[in-house]
């Protein structure tokens, strides 16, 4: 589904503050694979995720998604395949827009945003039904601005929004880093359920080793812009949580 080949990313090339964030990464991610990426700060894991998302473009190498060469495509041109959840709950939603407006935009992620009114009674009912599956009681608040909700509620809604339109790849950039343990648990369980139910290919970047242990069917450890360890489903299932802590020892 996703193929990253010989990718390098250099920031501030030729200047005193040059950073070689990604130094020759080759990763192939199969369909319905749920890849977890761990690594210390500055290891390049978020940069790699942003390269796949298209927020930044590689210095060299190529990136393919679903057989399409997307190396030079901007992030907004990759939304055809990719939905994202950000570390900051504020980034994944528009706070001043109503929940309903946010969902409308998500529902037309892969389509042009035209000059017709897309929010009708049918759409409102659809959104209410979807939101009620979260069991947070938010289905009666769809006219409220998104900004009135808590971070956990917003992350959960962002996840739901990602499957409002056809979605193949879900990118999760430390989605629980800003949340309390209970909300984090709800968000990760929702993510895992959606990934299974919709057969998504997913990448989760996380600092939380417990999450890295529980979720996903493949794990990669990155260090200094390179892939240090790569464990497939079989190896990951034999992995113990303490082994993960040892990686950072």
């Amino acid at each position: 589904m996703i193929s990253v080949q010989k990718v390098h990313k250099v920031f501030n090339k030729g200047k005193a503050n040059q950073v070689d964030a990604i130094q020759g990464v080759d990763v192939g991610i199969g369909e319905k694979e749920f890849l977890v990426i761990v690594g210390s700060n500055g290891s390049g894991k978020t940069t790699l995720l942003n390269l796949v998302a298209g927020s930044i473009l590689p210095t060299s190498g190529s990136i393919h998604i679903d057989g399409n060469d997307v190396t030079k495509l901007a992030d907004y041109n990759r939304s055809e395949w990719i939905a994202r959840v950000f570390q900051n709950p504020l980034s994944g939603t528009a706070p001043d827009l109503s929940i309903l407006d946010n969902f409308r935009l998500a529902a037309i992620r892969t389509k042009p945003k035209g000059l017709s009114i897309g929010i009708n009674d049918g759409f409102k009912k659809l959104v209410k039904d979807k939101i009620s599956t979260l069991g947070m009681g938010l289905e009666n608040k769809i006219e409220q601005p998104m900004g009135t909700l808590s971070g956990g509620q917003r992350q959960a809604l962002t996840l739901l929004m990602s499957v409002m339109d056809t979605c193949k790849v879900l990118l999760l950039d430390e989605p629980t880093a800003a949340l309390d343990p209970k909300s984090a648990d709800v968000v990760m369980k929702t993510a895992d359920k959606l990934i299974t139910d919709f057969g998504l290919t997913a990448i989760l970047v996380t600092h939380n080793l417990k999450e890295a242990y529980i979720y996903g069917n493949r794990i990669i450890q990155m260090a200094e812009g390179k892939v240090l360890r790569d464990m497939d489903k079989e190896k990951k299932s034999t992995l113990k949580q303490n082994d993960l802590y040892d990686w950072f020892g």
Partner: protein
Amino acid sequence: MDLYLSALVQGLCLSGIALGIFISMKIFNIPDITTDGSYTLGGVVTAKMLVLHQPVFVSLPVVIVAGALAGALTGLIHTKLKINALLAGILVMTALYSVNLTLMGRSNIPLINTSSIFTLLNISADPNHNTFLILLVFVALVTLIIGYLLKTDFGIAMRATGNSETMIRALGVNTDRMKITGLALANALTALSGFMITQFQGFADINMGIGIVIVGLGSVIIAETLINWFRITSVWISLLFVLSGAIVFQFVLAFTLSLGVNPNLLKIVTAVFVLLIVSLPRLSASFKNPS
């Protein structure tokens, strides 16, 4: 014309600027001051078209396109060359001064014995009421179009662009193109104000736009205060508040003049008035919680 009816009519004429600033400042979060130039451009193009005896269905689209081009230029400079929006606006505004002067060929075009939108229809026998009614219908139509636009999928994407750029890019919107479109729309509305005021006052002048941006800012800030006060989320009510803001603003100026204040001091009164509205929420908060 009665001072307050005159203020009302002026408020309606200037509501285009208010709507334009509402779009650039509140929806896109971009401080755009192309306004001074695009307002004059609207007026100049209108005067030129009227002198050439062009009918309104020709002059109106030309004015809209002229304003939109000015805004799109600011948008292009801001997004593609990554120039600060304020500076991009100043650059285009400055350049427009020469464009306007060249278009007019002199600094002032009086409109004598030319038709206008106000002679198009005779709704009321009293010409002043007629002017007011025609403007009311025109402004209502413009507001309806903008309100509808903001409710469409495109409009929601516009609102999201100014609110959460990372989100809307992830949802497949080219934010650069959206900002250029938004600034084009905002300045087309501003040019419409130039269109209306030129026909109302019967002349276009190269200096008519100097400091006009404050009218839009003041109107939007009045509207914003009301919107926050009443916790308004409806697009329609927000737009109505912006229109009211434009009218209230002119009433305050008319009232100041009626008190016998020297017209030379009008700009300082305007500035102080806007300062007052901006600082009102803070001032009232610090009176309640002195610390």
